[in-house]
């Protein structure tokens, strides 16, 4: 990374260029000079300068015009204009055009030193800000999406590929798989990351409310519309709109949405002024949109408009190898937020989680861990802390004998191999339970 600040001096007077050149060289800056605006623009096109010190009165293109052209080319350039003919009008014009400062020749040496020092400080703050922003985004991506399974690696690869583009994306997956997290990851790895990510939960809003939410409304558009309000599309200008539960929107809204996606223009509810907004759209659904298109409940043209890229997140039951990592992640998350010491999970409880089919996916697992930390003993998560109903039968192809063995084992684990309590839960007497333990060759892990 470049550490020395570079300065370009633009002045038609050689003595001024030389004086400034010597002054800045002695301060350790990288310095270059140009005798007129044309030469300066050519240098700026081929090389990046941190600070440009430009005279206003020059033959040919004047400093103000040159300043406008530089700003159009590189909006981050710090330009200080200087002139021998002080006039409030030119100073105001230069500052309006985005000049960093304005100085009248000849300068007091101290003023010049302070001016450059302030500009250098601004550059250093800007660089620091950029680095911190990048760091934040990276942290968000690394920490929030947890998973090492082939399925999740494929999803993350797709996120990586699609993020830099501007294409629409549909994220599909069962409820609770983390579709919004994937949308955030796409946004925060895209060139739009410094602009807003605006989320709309379409399923939670009625048709009228959704229209007002997306497009905004003018004062008096409907009862209760006391003030003008910006819509989500307008708020997302430069960024991304995430429409969750897209399958729930009405046919009328589908037509409106298609029109906006095609023109990127819309009007607020009750207004007639066309508003332009540049946003990327990411949708999510747990429904089969293709089937909805086939049965006529979702517009085909909108479907193809949205479905440029499709990312499907596998359900948790298809990536059980991610469960231990997710459990560790949620334990850390909730212990930290509850200001508790980190706890562990015992093997029986973890095994039970790995066997469970998680209809509510990662969200269900997260809730389970949170609850277990709250109700648990503060040292480890035990089987009895998990609110999983015995469901060995649900997805099983086991024989009756196998099912009985598993059911008894789980009950014993749940009650820490307390025979009386386990027998009571199984609604059999203790002798029968002993016999069953013997028959199935079950043994307590503590022995």
């Amino acid at each position, binding site marked *: 990374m470049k550490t020395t600040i570079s300065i370009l001096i633009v002045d038609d007077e050689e003595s001024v260029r030389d*004086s400034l050149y*010597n002054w800045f060289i002695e301060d350790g800056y990288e310095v270059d000079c140009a005798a007129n605006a044309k030469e300066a623009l050519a240098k700026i096109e081929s090389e990046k300068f941190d600070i440009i010190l430009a005279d206003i009165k020059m033959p040919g293109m004047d400093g103000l015009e040159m300043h406008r052209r530089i700003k159009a080319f590189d909006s981050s350039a710090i330009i200080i204009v200087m002139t021998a003919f002080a006039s409030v009008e030119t100073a105001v014009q230069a500052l309006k055009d985005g000049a960093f400062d304005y100085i009248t020749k000849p300068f007091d040496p101290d003023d010049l030193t302070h001016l450059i020092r302030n500009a250098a400080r601004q550059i250093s703050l800007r660089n620091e800000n950029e680095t911190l922003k990048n760091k934040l985004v990276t942290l968000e991506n690394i920490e929030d999406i947890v998973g090492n399974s082939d399925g999740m690696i494929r999803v993350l690869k797709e996120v990586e590929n699609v993020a830099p583009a501007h294409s629409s994306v549909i994220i599909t997956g069962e409820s609770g798989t983390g579709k919004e997290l994937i949308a955030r990851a796409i946004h925060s790895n895209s060139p739009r990351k410094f602009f807003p990510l605006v989320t709309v939960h379409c399923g939670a809003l009625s048709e009228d409310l959704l229209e007002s939410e997306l497009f905004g409304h003018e004062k008096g558009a409907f009862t209760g519309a006391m003030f003008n309000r910006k819509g989500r599309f307008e708020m997302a200008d430069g960024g991304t709109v995430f429409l969750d539960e897209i399958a729930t929107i009405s046919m009328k809204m589908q037509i409106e949405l298609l029109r906006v996606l095609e023109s990127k223009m819309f009007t607020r509810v009750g207004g007639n002024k066309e508003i332009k907004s540049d946003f990327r759209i990411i949708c999510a659904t747990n429904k089969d949109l293709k089937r909805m298109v086939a049965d006529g409940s979702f517009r085909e043209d909108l479907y193809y408009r949205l479905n440029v890229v499709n990312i499907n997140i596998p359900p948790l039951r298809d990536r059980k190898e991610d469960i231990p990592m997710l459990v560790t992640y949620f334990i850390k998350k909730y212990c930290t937020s509850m200001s508790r010491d980190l706890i562990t999970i015992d093997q029986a409880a973890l095994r039970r989680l790995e066997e469970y089919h998680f209809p509510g996916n990662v969200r269900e697992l997260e809730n389970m861990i949170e609850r277990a930390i709250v109700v648990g003993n503060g040292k480890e998560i035990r089987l009895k802390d998990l609110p999983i109903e015995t469901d060995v039968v649900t997805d099983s192809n086991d024989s009756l004998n196998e099912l009985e063995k598993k059911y008894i084992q789980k009950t014993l684990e749940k009650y820490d191999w307390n025979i009386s309590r386990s027998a009571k839960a199984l609604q059999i007497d203790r002798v029968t339970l002993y016999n069953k333990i013997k028959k199935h060759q079950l043994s307590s892990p503590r022995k």
Partner: protein
Amino acid sequence: MEKKGITLVVQGRFEKTFLDQMARDIETAFGWPVSVVPLTHDILPFFDAARKQYDANRLLQLVHAEYAAESLKTIGLFQVDLFIPILTYIFGQAQYNGSTGIASVYRLRNEQYGMAGNERLLYERFRKVVIHELGHAFGLIHCHVPICVMRPGTYVEDIDQKKHFFCNKCYAELEASLKAIQGS
């Protein structure tokens, strides 16, 4: 032709003891013999009537053209007020990594600021300015160590804050520069 050390080219009236002391201190600072010669040229053509100051760029050119050829480094010591086109005044200036510099005692006098004259303080300030400018001629840039002589100063108070010697880093760079000159 072998260069013969550092030359102080003196314009105007300086006390002999002042110049002798300056020569000794410069020799101590840079380790090269120092000689003192008077500036025999008329500097009136370099006076800017509008600014009532002398053009430092042109004085630097004069010293360089007329006195620098036989010396390793040459510095003109002036009594007059100096300016460069872009700045309202300067205490001195030098060719960065070059052979010539100039310095003026004019704005270092307490009397310029409504205070009682102090010859000892004036000498201290001028010694720092001369060493600072010669430092630039030896290739040193400004330093942010508060006491280092290469710290930039735009007011006399800034000059009073620093010492007349180099910080460790600047000294190491000066030594490297001096070694390179001796080796060449």
